[in-house]
């Protein structure tokens, strides 16, 4: 006999508010999935049209905390494209530094939450302790553990010196050693693998059809990393920085976790390379640009996948329309495929494996 089970919208195992209405059979296997959204909808796309271009830098950084650097980064790329501005090379490099630091911290946070939900508390503790090194780095250089306030129109708001470069290099080396050890521990933990291998499978065909991105796509054998497919910023100027993407065919929770390990190690490689070869020059253009009438579509690779911004302007100080789509917007729909036919007890872990960012998605 089928049984109705609800999870959420507020539940200790959910990072953010989602409401699952499931039907399960007598073996607690999910036979029907219904996901109800909208608990964190804030009407931000309407709000940004009431703020000027400078104020929107602050607002976009607050769409969500985990990818808080990517939103203003992509937004300024769109505004700069309309204005026809080319920023200094040093600013391009500094933007990439901040981005890869955020990616490492974000992916490590997701992995620690995954091990928490899999009840692997030693792995969780080690992963969070490693992430803490990145948090301390953010705090020491940018003065904040989440919102780094890096981007501005025509450049960045911070600079690095020999001392801070050394701090980044030391931290990256230390984190890299620990991440390699962690990846080995995840692979050697039979209990973790028992709980994650073959769980929440997203087949390659479904992944293509739904259009998933980021580590979710990479876990199902698809490489649509924007840094590789449509490189921007320093990834375009120095193609050797483009990540060597790790792909898996299994499409399960374990594969997505391993894809994230690949992302973290590449992020650390890029980070070390960029800070060791920082170009000289200014960090921003002193002349504040006029944003003329126009429209632009720009995208970047956020920790969870492709982030796209559409910006339309009319020559005034405010956007006419601004629209953005975050990776979870499409990855979320894939949950229905992943959860169907799996155990009810695995639902929150499967949700976590897409690294959902619901604040970003609902805006």
């Amino acid at each position, binding site marked *: 006999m089928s049984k109705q089970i609800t999870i959420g919208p507020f539940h200790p195992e959910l990072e953010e508010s989602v409401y699952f209405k499931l039907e399960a059979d007598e073996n607690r296997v999910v036979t029907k999935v219904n996901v109800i*959204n*909208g608990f964190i*909808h804030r*009407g931000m*796309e*309407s709000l940004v049209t009431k703020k000027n271009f400078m104020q929107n830098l602050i607002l976009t950084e607050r769409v969500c905390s985990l990818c808080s650097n990517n939103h203003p980064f992509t937004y300024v790329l769109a505004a700069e*494209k309309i204005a026809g501005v*080319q920023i200094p090379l040093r600013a391009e490099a500094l933007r990439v530094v901040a981005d890869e630091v955020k990616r490492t911290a974000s992916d490590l946070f997701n992995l620690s939450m995954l091990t928490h939900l899999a009840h692997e508390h030693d792995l969780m503790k080690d992963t969070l302790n490693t992430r803490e090194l990145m948090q301390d780095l953010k705090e020491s250089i940018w003065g904040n553990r989440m919102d780094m306030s890096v981007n501005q129109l025509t450049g960045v708001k911070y600079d690095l010196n020999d001392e801070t470069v050394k701090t980044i290099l030391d931290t990256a080396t230390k984190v890299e050693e620990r991440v390699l050890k962690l990846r080995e521990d995840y692979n050697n933990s039979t209990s973790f693998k028992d709980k994650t291998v073959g769980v929440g499978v997203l087949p390659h065909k479904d992944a*293509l*059809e*739904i*259009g998933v991105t980021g580590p979710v796509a990479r876990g199902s054998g698809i490489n*649509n990393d*924007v840094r*590789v*497919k*449509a*490189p*921007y*910023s320093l990834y*375009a*100027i120095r193609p050797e920085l483009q990540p060597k993407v790790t792909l898996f065919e299994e499409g399960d929770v374990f594969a997505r976790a391993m894809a994230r390990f690949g992302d973290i190690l590449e992020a650390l490689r890029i980070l070390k390379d960029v800070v060791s070869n920082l170009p000289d020059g200014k960090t921003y253009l002193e002349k504040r640009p006029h944003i003329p009438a126009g429209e632009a*579509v*720009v*995208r970047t690779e956020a920790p969870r996948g*492709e982030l*796209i911004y*559409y910006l*339309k302007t009319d020559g005034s100080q405010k956007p*006419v*329309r601004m*629209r953005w*789509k975050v990776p979870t*917007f*499409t990855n*979320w*729909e894939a949950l229905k495929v992943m959860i169907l036919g799996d155990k009810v007890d695995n639902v929150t872990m499967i949700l976590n494996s897409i690294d959902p960012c619901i604040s970003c998605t*609902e805006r």
Partner: protein
Amino acid sequence: MSIEEFNNAIKNKIPSGYELKEDQDSYGNSQAWITIREKKYALVVANAIKAFKGRCVVATAYKEQNSHVVIYHFDIDGVIINLQLKTNDSTIYSITPILKSADWAEREIREMYSVEPVGHPSNDRLFLDYGLAKGVLNEYISLSKMQMGVSDTDILWSKVKKEVKL
């Protein structure tokens, strides 16, 4: 895939014509901007995207006087194809039956702008509660009005009154 190849794939299939613009960012990434005159030919473009194994990344809508502009943003292996169309009767032809990746994008346009994607397989709301009227982005709505149910009617209070037993 190049933009020229994509243009070749659609050029004989849209009798009422279209405009094609190409732009390139400072990093060398090209994008196509296709504006169709008749909205039904969005289906032709969607079929071509599918044939090239592309996906719908998202869609944008905005209001322009008495009509709505809808822009689909597609991706084919790193190249963005933007498809722009105008609708005067608040309906568009849903491309979700062709490209599943357009599902949420079209549903969001429906609830934010009250533009109906005709033929969309789902009638469910995406983010907004059924108590809120469709098309909340068509006009500026103050917070106090939003809390009253975004409507000229008393949706919220009728709901409350029904539940209150005097």
